[in-house]
Protein backbone atom coordinates (compact mmCIF):
# COMPACT_ATOMS: atom_id res chain seq x y z
CA UNK A 1 0.00 0.00 0.00
CA UNK A 2 1.25 3.46 -0.90
CA UNK A 3 -0.02 6.49 0.96
CA UNK A 4 0.98 10.06 0.10
CA UNK A 5 -0.34 12.96 2.16
CA UNK A 6 -0.05 16.67 1.49
CA UNK A 7 3.15 16.37 -0.56
CA UNK A 8 4.88 19.63 -1.48
CA UNK A 9 7.90 20.09 -3.73
CA UNK A 10 9.35 23.21 -5.33
CA UNK A 11 12.48 23.81 -7.40
CA UNK A 12 13.46 27.38 -6.63
CA UNK A 13 10.41 29.50 -7.45
CA UNK A 14 8.84 26.74 -9.50
CA UNK A 15 6.17 25.05 -7.39
CA UNK A 16 5.70 21.55 -8.78
CA UNK A 17 3.67 19.73 -6.15
CA UNK A 18 1.54 21.73 -3.74
CA UNK A 19 -0.35 19.28 -1.57
CA UNK A 20 -0.67 16.00 -3.43
CA UNK A 21 -2.71 13.26 -1.76
CA UNK A 22 -2.65 9.78 -3.30
CA UNK A 23 -3.56 6.36 -1.99
CA UNK A 24 -2.90 3.10 -3.81
CA UNK A 25 -4.12 -0.15 -2.29
CA UNK A 26 -1.99 -3.28 -2.52
CA UNK A 27 -2.40 -5.09 -5.83
CA UNK A 28 -4.06 -2.12 -7.54
CA UNK A 29 -2.91 -0.25 -10.61
CA UNK A 30 -3.03 3.54 -10.43
CA UNK A 31 -2.41 5.59 -13.55
CA UNK A 32 -1.36 9.21 -13.03
CA UNK A 33 -2.19 11.56 -15.88
CA UNK A 34 -1.64 15.25 -16.40
CA UNK A 35 0.01 17.71 -18.74
CA UNK A 36 3.76 17.90 -19.30
CA UNK A 37 5.62 19.50 -16.39
CA UNK A 38 2.86 18.95 -13.86
CA UNK A 39 5.08 16.92 -11.55
CA UNK A 40 4.11 13.34 -12.31
CA UNK A 41 7.71 12.09 -12.56
CA UNK A 42 8.66 14.17 -9.51
CA UNK A 43 5.93 12.36 -7.57
CA UNK A 44 7.43 8.95 -8.46
CA UNK A 45 10.94 10.13 -7.61
CA UNK A 46 9.74 11.42 -4.24
CA UNK A 47 8.22 8.03 -3.45
CA UNK A 48 11.50 6.31 -4.33
CA UNK A 49 13.51 8.83 -2.30
CA UNK A 50 15.40 10.05 -5.39
CA UNK A 51 14.07 13.54 -4.66
CA UNK A 52 13.45 14.82 -1.14
CA UNK A 53 10.05 16.51 -0.81
CA UNK A 54 9.77 19.87 0.94
CA UNK A 55 6.96 18.63 3.17
CA UNK A 56 4.29 15.97 3.41
CA UNK A 57 4.40 12.28 4.23
CA UNK A 58 5.04 9.23 2.09
CA UNK A 59 4.50 5.73 3.38
CA UNK A 60 5.06 2.50 1.50
CA UNK A 61 3.68 -0.44 3.45
CA UNK A 62 3.93 1.83 6.50
CA UNK A 63 7.59 2.73 5.92
CA UNK A 64 9.01 6.16 5.08
CA UNK A 65 11.39 6.00 2.08
CA UNK A 66 14.15 7.93 3.82
CA UNK A 67 14.08 6.12 7.15
CA UNK A 68 15.76 2.83 7.97
CA UNK A 69 17.39 0.51 5.49
CA UNK A 70 17.28 2.15 2.04
CA UNK A 71 18.39 -1.01 0.28
CA UNK A 72 15.62 -3.10 1.82
CA UNK A 73 13.12 -0.36 1.03
CA UNK A 74 14.17 -0.19 -2.62
CA UNK A 75 14.14 -3.98 -2.92
CA UNK A 76 10.34 -3.73 -2.99
CA UNK A 77 10.41 -1.71 -6.21
CA UNK A 78 10.87 -2.23 -9.90
CA UNK A 79 10.83 0.71 -12.27
CA UNK A 80 10.54 1.13 -16.00
CA UNK A 81 12.08 4.46 -16.97
CA UNK A 82 10.78 6.62 -19.77
CA UNK A 83 13.95 6.27 -21.88
CA UNK A 84 14.68 2.74 -20.66
CA UNK A 85 17.75 3.87 -18.67
CA UNK A 86 19.55 0.68 -19.67
CA UNK A 87 23.23 0.52 -18.80
CA UNK A 88 25.09 1.07 -22.09
CA UNK A 89 28.18 -0.86 -21.12
CA UNK A 90 26.40 -4.06 -20.06
CA UNK A 91 24.82 -6.68 -22.33
CA UNK A 92 21.06 -7.06 -22.17
CA UNK A 93 21.06 -10.08 -19.87
CA UNK A 94 23.23 -8.27 -17.30
CA UNK A 95 20.91 -5.27 -17.48
CA UNK A 96 17.90 -7.49 -16.81
CA UNK A 97 19.52 -9.45 -13.99
CA UNK A 98 21.46 -6.48 -12.55
CA UNK A 99 19.72 -6.62 -9.17
CA UNK A 100 20.12 -10.40 -8.99
CA UNK A 101 23.89 -10.05 -9.38
CA UNK A 102 24.26 -7.56 -6.50
CA UNK A 103 23.89 -7.65 -2.75
CA UNK A 104 23.98 -10.32 -0.08
CA UNK A 105 21.65 -12.73 -1.87
CA UNK A 106 23.26 -12.49 -5.28
CA UNK A 107 22.86 -15.39 -7.63
CA UNK A 108 25.53 -17.09 -9.68
CA UNK A 109 26.00 -15.68 -13.19
CA UNK A 110 24.48 -18.80 -14.76
CA UNK A 111 21.34 -18.65 -12.61
CA UNK A 112 20.99 -14.89 -13.14
CA UNK A 113 21.34 -15.34 -16.90
CA UNK A 114 18.67 -18.08 -16.92
CA UNK A 115 16.27 -15.78 -15.10
CA UNK A 116 17.13 -12.90 -17.46
CA UNK A 117 16.41 -15.07 -20.50
CA UNK A 118 13.12 -16.19 -18.96
CA UNK A 119 12.07 -12.57 -18.26
CA UNK A 120 13.08 -11.57 -21.78
CA UNK A 121 10.89 -14.34 -23.11
CA UNK A 122 8.07 -13.07 -20.89
CA UNK A 123 8.23 -9.67 -22.57
CA UNK A 124 8.37 -11.22 -26.03
CA UNK A 125 12.09 -11.10 -26.75
CA UNK A 126 14.20 -14.00 -27.99
CA UNK A 127 17.10 -15.45 -26.02
CA UNK A 128 19.48 -14.25 -28.75
CA UNK A 129 18.85 -10.67 -27.60
CA UNK A 130 20.47 -11.47 -24.23
CA UNK A 131 24.03 -10.98 -25.46
CA UNK A 132 23.40 -7.80 -27.44
CA UNK A 133 24.19 -4.34 -26.13
CA UNK A 134 21.27 -1.94 -25.52
CA UNK A 135 22.47 0.37 -28.32
CA UNK A 136 21.90 -2.46 -30.81
CA UNK A 137 18.17 -2.65 -30.02
CA UNK A 138 15.21 -0.66 -31.35
CA UNK A 139 13.26 1.70 -29.05
CA UNK A 140 10.48 -0.83 -28.56
CA UNK A 141 12.93 -3.61 -27.72
CA UNK A 142 14.70 -1.33 -25.24
CA UNK A 143 11.38 -0.64 -23.52
CA UNK A 144 10.76 -4.35 -23.28
CA UNK A 145 14.23 -4.95 -21.85
CA UNK A 146 13.50 -2.18 -19.33
CA UNK A 147 10.26 -3.93 -18.49
CA UNK A 148 12.07 -7.26 -18.07
CA UNK A 149 14.56 -5.55 -15.74
CA UNK A 150 11.73 -4.00 -13.71
CA UNK A 151 10.14 -7.41 -13.09
CA UNK A 152 13.32 -9.51 -12.85
CA UNK A 153 13.41 -9.59 -9.05
CA UNK A 154 9.60 -9.92 -8.83
CA UNK A 155 9.06 -6.73 -6.86
CA UNK A 156 5.89 -5.97 -4.89
CA UNK A 157 5.59 -2.50 -6.41
CA UNK A 158 6.27 -1.48 -10.01
CA UNK A 159 6.46 2.05 -11.42
CA UNK A 160 6.10 2.70 -15.12
CA UNK A 161 7.21 6.14 -16.31
CA UNK A 162 5.56 6.82 -19.67
CA UNK A 163 5.90 3.23 -20.92
CA UNK A 164 4.66 3.94 -24.45
CA UNK A 165 6.22 7.33 -25.19
CA UNK A 166 8.00 7.36 -28.55
CA UNK A 167 6.58 4.01 -29.70
CA UNK A 168 4.36 3.33 -32.68
CA UNK A 169 0.68 2.51 -31.92
CA UNK A 170 1.10 -1.24 -32.38
CA UNK A 171 4.16 -1.40 -30.13
CA UNK A 172 2.32 0.82 -27.62
CA UNK A 173 -0.52 -1.70 -27.61
CA UNK A 174 1.94 -4.56 -27.05
CA UNK A 175 3.58 -2.75 -24.12
CA UNK A 176 0.20 -1.81 -22.58
CA UNK A 177 -0.92 -5.41 -22.78
CA UNK A 178 2.34 -6.62 -21.26
CA UNK A 179 2.17 -4.13 -18.40
CA UNK A 180 -1.40 -5.14 -17.58
CA UNK A 181 -0.66 -8.87 -17.80
CA UNK A 182 2.44 -8.58 -15.65
CA UNK A 183 0.72 -6.52 -12.96
CA UNK A 184 -2.20 -8.96 -12.77
CA UNK A 185 0.03 -12.04 -12.95
CA UNK A 186 2.41 -10.84 -10.23
CA UNK A 187 -0.28 -9.26 -8.08
CA UNK A 188 1.93 -6.19 -7.90
CA UNK A 189 0.95 -2.68 -6.89
CA UNK A 190 1.58 -0.39 -9.84
CA UNK A 191 1.79 3.31 -10.53
CA UNK A 192 2.01 4.34 -14.17
CA UNK A 193 2.61 7.81 -15.53
CA UNK A 194 1.35 8.45 -19.02
CA UNK A 195 -0.18 10.94 -21.45
CA UNK A 196 -1.43 8.14 -23.62
CA UNK A 197 -5.15 7.56 -23.09
CA UNK A 198 -5.02 4.09 -24.66
CA UNK A 199 -2.48 3.20 -21.94
CA UNK A 200 -4.76 4.63 -19.27
CA UNK A 201 -7.68 2.52 -20.40
CA UNK A 202 -5.55 -0.61 -20.78
CA UNK A 203 -3.58 -0.41 -17.54
CA UNK A 204 -5.59 1.44 -14.88
CA UNK A 205 -7.77 0.27 -12.02
CA UNK A 206 -7.76 3.83 -10.68
CA UNK A 207 -6.86 7.14 -12.29
CA UNK A 208 -5.49 10.31 -10.70
CA UNK A 209 -5.13 13.52 -12.65
CA UNK A 210 -2.55 16.04 -11.48
CA UNK A 211 -3.03 19.69 -12.38
CA UNK A 212 -1.29 22.73 -10.91
CA UNK A 213 0.44 20.68 -8.22
CA UNK A 214 -2.60 18.92 -6.79
CA UNK A 215 -4.69 15.87 -7.62
CA UNK A 216 -7.51 17.44 -9.64
CA UNK A 217 -9.57 14.27 -9.94
CA UNK A 218 -9.22 10.68 -8.80
CA UNK A 219 -11.49 7.70 -9.24
CA UNK A 220 -11.96 4.29 -10.82
CA UNK A 221 -11.24 3.91 -14.54
CA UNK A 222 -14.91 3.16 -15.16
CA UNK A 223 -15.87 6.68 -14.07
CA UNK A 224 -13.39 8.54 -16.22
CA UNK A 225 -15.83 9.37 -19.03
CA UNK A 226 -18.62 10.49 -16.71
CA UNK A 227 -16.61 12.37 -14.08
CA UNK A 228 -18.18 15.76 -14.78
CA UNK A 229 -14.76 17.31 -14.10
CA UNK A 230 -14.03 19.89 -16.83
CA UNK A 231 -10.23 19.49 -16.44
CA UNK A 232 -10.36 15.73 -16.82
CA UNK A 233 -12.84 15.97 -19.71
CA UNK A 234 -10.58 18.38 -21.56
CA UNK A 235 -7.53 16.17 -20.99
CA UNK A 236 -9.03 12.80 -21.94
CA UNK A 237 -10.78 14.22 -25.00
CA UNK A 238 -7.63 16.14 -26.08
CA UNK A 239 -9.53 19.43 -26.42
CA UNK A 240 -7.32 22.46 -27.05
CA UNK A 241 -9.84 24.76 -25.30
CA UNK A 242 -11.02 24.47 -21.72
CA UNK A 243 -9.92 25.25 -18.17
CA UNK A 244 -6.39 23.90 -18.80
CA UNK A 245 -4.37 26.52 -20.65
CA UNK A 246 -2.77 25.08 -23.77
CA UNK A 247 0.26 27.38 -23.40
CA UNK A 248 2.08 26.68 -20.15
Amino acid at each position, binding site marked *: MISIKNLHKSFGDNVVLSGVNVHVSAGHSLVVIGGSGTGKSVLLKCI*LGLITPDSGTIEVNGINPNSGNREAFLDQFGMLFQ*GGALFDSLPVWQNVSFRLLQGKHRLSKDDARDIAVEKLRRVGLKASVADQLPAELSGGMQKRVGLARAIAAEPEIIFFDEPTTGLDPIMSGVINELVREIVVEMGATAITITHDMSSVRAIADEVAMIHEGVVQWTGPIGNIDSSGDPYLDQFINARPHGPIESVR
Partner: protein
Amino acid sequence: MSNSVIQVIDGFLANIGRTVLALFESIGQLVIFAALAVSHIFRPPFYLGSFGRQLMHIGFFSLPVVGLTALFTGGALALQIYSGGARFSAEAVVPSVVAIAMVRELGPVLGGLMVAGRVSASIAAELGTMRVTEQIDALTTLSTNPMKYLVAPRLLAATLVMPILVFIGDTIGIMGGFLVGTNRLGFNGATYLQNTWNFLEADDIISGLIKAAVFGFIVALLGCYNGYHSGRGAMGVGRATTNAVVSASVLILASNYILTEMFF
Protein backbone atom coordinates in the same frame (compact mmCIF):
# COMPACT_ATOMS: atom_id res chain seq x y z
CA MET B 1 26.04 60.69 -2.99
CA SER B 2 22.98 60.28 -5.13
CA ASN B 3 20.66 57.30 -4.77
CA SER B 4 21.54 55.94 -8.21
CA VAL B 5 25.28 55.80 -7.34
CA ILE B 6 24.50 54.04 -4.07
CA GLN B 7 22.33 51.56 -5.98
CA VAL B 8 25.13 50.82 -8.47
CA ILE B 9 27.64 50.25 -5.64
CA ASP B 10 25.07 48.17 -3.77
CA GLY B 11 24.46 46.02 -6.85
CA PHE B 12 28.19 45.63 -7.48
CA LEU B 13 28.84 44.51 -3.89
CA ALA B 14 25.83 42.19 -3.99
CA ASN B 15 27.25 40.56 -7.14
CA ILE B 16 30.61 40.04 -5.47
CA GLY B 17 28.86 38.59 -2.42
CA ARG B 18 26.80 36.22 -4.53
CA THR B 19 29.88 35.03 -6.42
CA VAL B 20 31.85 34.44 -3.22
CA LEU B 21 28.94 32.60 -1.62
CA ALA B 22 28.50 30.45 -4.75
CA LEU B 23 32.22 29.66 -4.73
CA PHE B 24 32.14 28.58 -1.10
CA GLU B 25 28.98 26.58 -1.74
CA SER B 26 30.68 24.74 -4.62
CA ILE B 27 33.78 24.05 -2.54
CA GLY B 28 31.61 22.78 0.32
CA GLN B 29 29.68 20.48 -2.02
CA LEU B 30 32.90 19.14 -3.52
CA VAL B 31 34.39 18.44 -0.09
CA ILE B 32 31.23 16.64 1.06
CA PHE B 33 31.17 14.65 -2.20
CA ALA B 34 34.83 13.69 -1.74
CA ALA B 35 34.34 12.67 1.90
CA LEU B 36 31.32 10.56 1.00
CA ALA B 37 33.14 8.93 -1.93
CA VAL B 38 36.22 8.13 0.20
CA SER B 39 34.03 6.64 2.94
CA HIS B 40 32.48 4.32 0.34
CA ILE B 41 35.92 3.04 -0.68
CA PHE B 42 36.29 1.44 2.75
CA ARG B 43 32.74 0.14 3.24
CA PRO B 44 31.34 -3.01 1.59
CA PRO B 45 30.07 -4.04 -0.86
CA PHE B 46 33.19 -3.68 -3.01
CA TYR B 47 32.83 -3.75 -6.79
CA LEU B 48 36.09 -5.41 -7.75
CA GLY B 49 35.09 -5.92 -11.39
CA SER B 50 34.42 -2.21 -11.78
CA PHE B 51 37.68 -1.39 -9.96
CA GLY B 52 39.63 -3.65 -12.33
CA ARG B 53 38.03 -2.06 -15.40
CA GLN B 54 38.94 1.39 -14.10
CA LEU B 55 42.55 0.33 -13.47
CA MET B 56 42.76 -0.64 -17.11
CA HIS B 57 40.92 2.42 -18.39
CA ILE B 58 42.73 5.00 -16.28
CA GLY B 59 46.13 3.34 -16.06
CA PHE B 60 46.90 1.03 -18.94
CA PHE B 61 45.14 3.03 -21.65
CA SER B 62 46.76 6.29 -20.49
CA LEU B 63 50.24 4.82 -20.92
CA PRO B 64 50.73 5.91 -24.56
CA VAL B 65 49.82 9.54 -23.92
CA VAL B 66 51.84 9.78 -20.70
CA GLY B 67 54.78 7.92 -22.26
CA LEU B 68 54.92 10.09 -25.38
CA THR B 69 54.59 13.27 -23.31
CA ALA B 70 57.44 12.17 -21.06
CA LEU B 71 59.64 11.07 -23.96
CA PHE B 72 59.43 14.40 -25.81
CA THR B 73 59.62 16.43 -22.60
CA GLY B 74 62.79 14.59 -21.51
CA GLY B 75 64.37 15.21 -24.92
CA ALA B 76 63.47 18.90 -25.00
CA LEU B 77 64.62 19.30 -21.42
CA ALA B 78 68.05 17.88 -22.26
CA LEU B 79 68.45 20.39 -25.08
CA GLN B 80 67.32 23.34 -22.95
CA ILE B 81 69.52 22.45 -19.98
CA TYR B 82 72.48 21.91 -22.26
CA SER B 83 71.88 25.31 -23.87
CA GLY B 84 71.45 27.04 -20.50
CA GLY B 85 74.29 25.14 -18.86
CA ALA B 86 76.68 26.08 -21.68
CA ARG B 87 76.46 29.71 -20.51
CA PHE B 88 78.09 28.66 -17.22
CA SER B 89 80.24 25.87 -18.66
CA ALA B 90 78.00 23.46 -16.84
CA GLU B 91 76.85 21.19 -19.68
CA ALA B 92 77.68 18.17 -17.56
CA VAL B 93 74.65 18.77 -15.34
CA VAL B 94 72.28 17.67 -18.13
CA PRO B 95 71.76 14.04 -16.94
CA SER B 96 71.21 14.92 -13.29
CA VAL B 97 68.96 17.94 -13.92
CA VAL B 98 66.86 16.07 -16.50
CA ALA B 99 66.37 13.24 -14.01
CA ILE B 100 65.57 15.50 -11.06
CA ALA B 101 63.24 17.75 -13.08
CA MET B 102 61.41 14.78 -14.58
CA VAL B 103 61.01 12.86 -11.34
CA ARG B 104 60.21 15.73 -8.99
CA GLU B 105 58.18 18.01 -11.23
CA LEU B 106 57.56 17.42 -14.91
CA GLY B 107 56.70 13.71 -14.74
CA PRO B 108 53.92 14.08 -12.18
CA VAL B 109 52.61 17.46 -13.36
CA LEU B 110 52.59 16.80 -17.11
CA GLY B 111 51.40 13.23 -16.54
CA GLY B 112 48.65 14.57 -14.26
CA LEU B 113 47.59 17.19 -16.81
CA MET B 114 47.53 14.69 -19.67
CA VAL B 115 45.52 12.22 -17.61
CA ALA B 116 43.22 15.07 -16.55
CA GLY B 117 42.54 15.76 -20.22
CA ARG B 118 41.93 12.12 -21.05
CA VAL B 119 40.40 10.60 -17.93
CA SER B 120 38.56 13.51 -16.25
CA ALA B 121 36.80 14.27 -19.51
CA SER B 122 35.92 10.65 -20.11
CA ILE B 123 34.61 10.10 -16.57
CA ALA B 124 32.59 13.34 -16.64
CA ALA B 125 31.09 12.53 -20.04
CA GLU B 126 30.25 8.96 -19.03
CA LEU B 127 28.66 9.85 -15.69
CA GLY B 128 27.01 12.94 -17.16
CA THR B 129 25.36 10.83 -19.86
CA MET B 130 24.30 8.33 -17.22
CA ARG B 131 22.77 11.17 -15.21
CA VAL B 132 20.94 12.64 -18.20
CA THR B 133 19.59 9.28 -19.36
CA GLU B 134 18.47 8.40 -15.80
CA GLN B 135 20.91 5.48 -15.55
CA ILE B 136 22.12 6.80 -12.19
CA ASP B 137 18.51 6.92 -10.92
CA ALA B 138 18.05 3.41 -12.33
CA LEU B 139 21.05 2.20 -10.29
CA THR B 140 19.45 3.57 -7.14
CA THR B 141 16.13 1.89 -7.86
CA LEU B 142 18.05 -1.36 -8.32
CA SER B 143 19.27 -1.04 -4.71
CA THR B 144 22.78 -0.09 -5.80
CA ASN B 145 24.43 3.00 -4.37
CA PRO B 146 25.84 4.99 -7.35
CA MET B 147 28.57 6.51 -5.15
CA LYS B 148 29.76 3.03 -4.31
CA TYR B 149 29.31 1.52 -7.77
CA LEU B 150 30.44 4.41 -9.98
CA VAL B 151 32.52 6.86 -7.93
CA ALA B 152 34.48 4.83 -5.36
CA PRO B 153 36.12 2.41 -7.87
CA ARG B 154 37.21 5.28 -10.13
CA LEU B 155 38.63 7.27 -7.23
CA LEU B 156 40.56 4.34 -5.80
CA ALA B 157 41.83 3.16 -9.19
CA ALA B 158 43.08 6.62 -10.20
CA THR B 159 44.80 7.20 -6.85
CA LEU B 160 46.59 3.84 -6.96
CA VAL B 161 47.47 3.70 -10.65
CA MET B 162 48.71 7.26 -11.15
CA PRO B 163 52.01 6.72 -9.25
CA ILE B 164 52.72 3.64 -11.39
CA LEU B 165 51.89 5.59 -14.52
CA VAL B 166 54.11 8.49 -13.48
CA PHE B 167 56.96 6.15 -12.50
CA ILE B 168 56.88 4.66 -15.99
CA GLY B 169 56.59 8.18 -17.45
CA ASP B 170 59.62 9.32 -15.41
CA THR B 171 61.67 6.43 -16.74
CA ILE B 172 60.64 7.15 -20.32
CA GLY B 173 61.36 10.87 -19.82
CA ILE B 174 64.86 10.12 -18.55
CA MET B 175 65.24 7.83 -21.53
CA GLY B 176 64.23 10.74 -23.81
CA GLY B 177 66.95 12.88 -22.23
CA PHE B 178 69.41 10.00 -22.60
CA LEU B 179 68.63 9.56 -26.32
CA VAL B 180 69.06 13.27 -27.04
CA GLY B 181 72.09 13.52 -24.76
CA THR B 182 73.95 10.63 -26.35
CA ASN B 183 72.89 11.11 -29.99
CA ARG B 184 72.69 14.88 -30.29
CA LEU B 185 74.80 16.36 -27.50
CA GLY B 186 77.70 13.94 -27.54
CA PHE B 187 77.39 12.46 -24.05
CA ASN B 188 78.85 9.07 -23.36
CA GLY B 189 76.00 6.65 -22.64
CA ALA B 190 77.52 5.00 -19.58
CA THR B 191 78.54 8.36 -18.06
CA TYR B 192 75.08 9.79 -18.69
CA LEU B 193 73.40 6.91 -16.87
CA GLN B 194 75.97 6.99 -14.07
CA ASN B 195 75.35 10.72 -13.50
CA THR B 196 71.59 10.20 -13.58
CA TRP B 197 71.84 7.46 -11.00
CA ASN B 198 74.34 9.26 -8.74
CA PHE B 199 72.38 12.47 -8.36
CA LEU B 200 68.88 11.02 -8.02
CA GLU B 201 67.76 10.52 -4.40
CA ALA B 202 64.99 8.37 -3.02
CA ASP B 203 63.19 11.50 -1.75
CA ASP B 204 63.00 12.84 -5.30
CA ILE B 205 61.23 9.73 -6.47
CA ILE B 206 58.95 9.42 -3.42
CA SER B 207 57.85 13.07 -3.54
CA GLY B 208 57.01 12.69 -7.24
CA LEU B 209 54.99 9.55 -6.61
CA ILE B 210 53.07 11.15 -3.73
CA LYS B 211 52.25 14.04 -6.03
CA ALA B 212 51.07 11.57 -8.66
CA ALA B 213 48.72 9.86 -6.18
CA VAL B 214 47.23 13.23 -5.19
CA PHE B 215 46.83 14.22 -8.85
CA GLY B 216 45.16 10.88 -9.62
CA PHE B 217 42.68 11.51 -6.81
CA ILE B 218 41.99 15.02 -8.14
CA VAL B 219 41.50 13.81 -11.72
CA ALA B 220 38.97 11.14 -10.74
CA LEU B 221 37.24 13.29 -8.12
CA LEU B 222 36.57 16.20 -10.45
CA GLY B 223 35.55 13.93 -13.32
CA CYS B 224 33.09 12.11 -11.05
CA TYR B 225 31.81 15.27 -9.31
CA ASN B 226 31.12 17.18 -12.50
CA GLY B 227 29.62 14.17 -14.29
CA TYR B 228 27.48 13.19 -11.31
CA HIS B 229 26.05 16.72 -11.10
CA SER B 230 25.77 17.21 -14.85
CA GLY B 231 23.01 19.47 -16.15
CA ARG B 232 20.38 18.31 -18.60
CA GLY B 233 20.94 17.53 -22.26
CA ALA B 234 23.98 17.57 -24.49
CA MET B 235 24.88 21.06 -23.31
CA GLY B 236 24.84 19.95 -19.67
CA VAL B 237 27.15 17.02 -20.39
CA GLY B 238 29.44 19.21 -22.50
CA ARG B 239 29.69 21.77 -19.72
CA ALA B 240 30.35 19.06 -17.13
CA THR B 241 33.18 17.68 -19.28
CA THR B 242 34.77 21.08 -19.78
CA ASN B 243 34.45 21.93 -16.08
CA ALA B 244 36.02 18.61 -15.13
CA VAL B 245 39.11 19.14 -17.28
CA VAL B 246 39.58 22.81 -16.41
CA SER B 247 39.02 22.41 -12.66
CA ALA B 248 41.18 19.26 -12.48
CA SER B 249 44.01 21.00 -14.35
CA VAL B 250 43.90 24.12 -12.18
CA LEU B 251 43.68 22.07 -8.99
CA ILE B 252 46.63 19.91 -10.10
CA LEU B 253 48.79 22.99 -10.64
CA ALA B 254 47.68 24.59 -7.36
CA SER B 255 48.17 21.44 -5.31
CA ASN B 256 51.52 20.88 -7.04
CA TYR B 257 52.76 24.17 -5.60
CA ILE B 258 51.48 23.28 -2.12
CA LEU B 259 53.05 19.80 -2.26
CA THR B 260 56.32 21.22 -3.56
CA GLU B 261 56.39 23.66 -0.63
CA MET B 262 55.84 20.71 1.70
CA PHE B 263 58.67 18.65 0.18
CA PHE B 264 61.01 21.66 -0.29
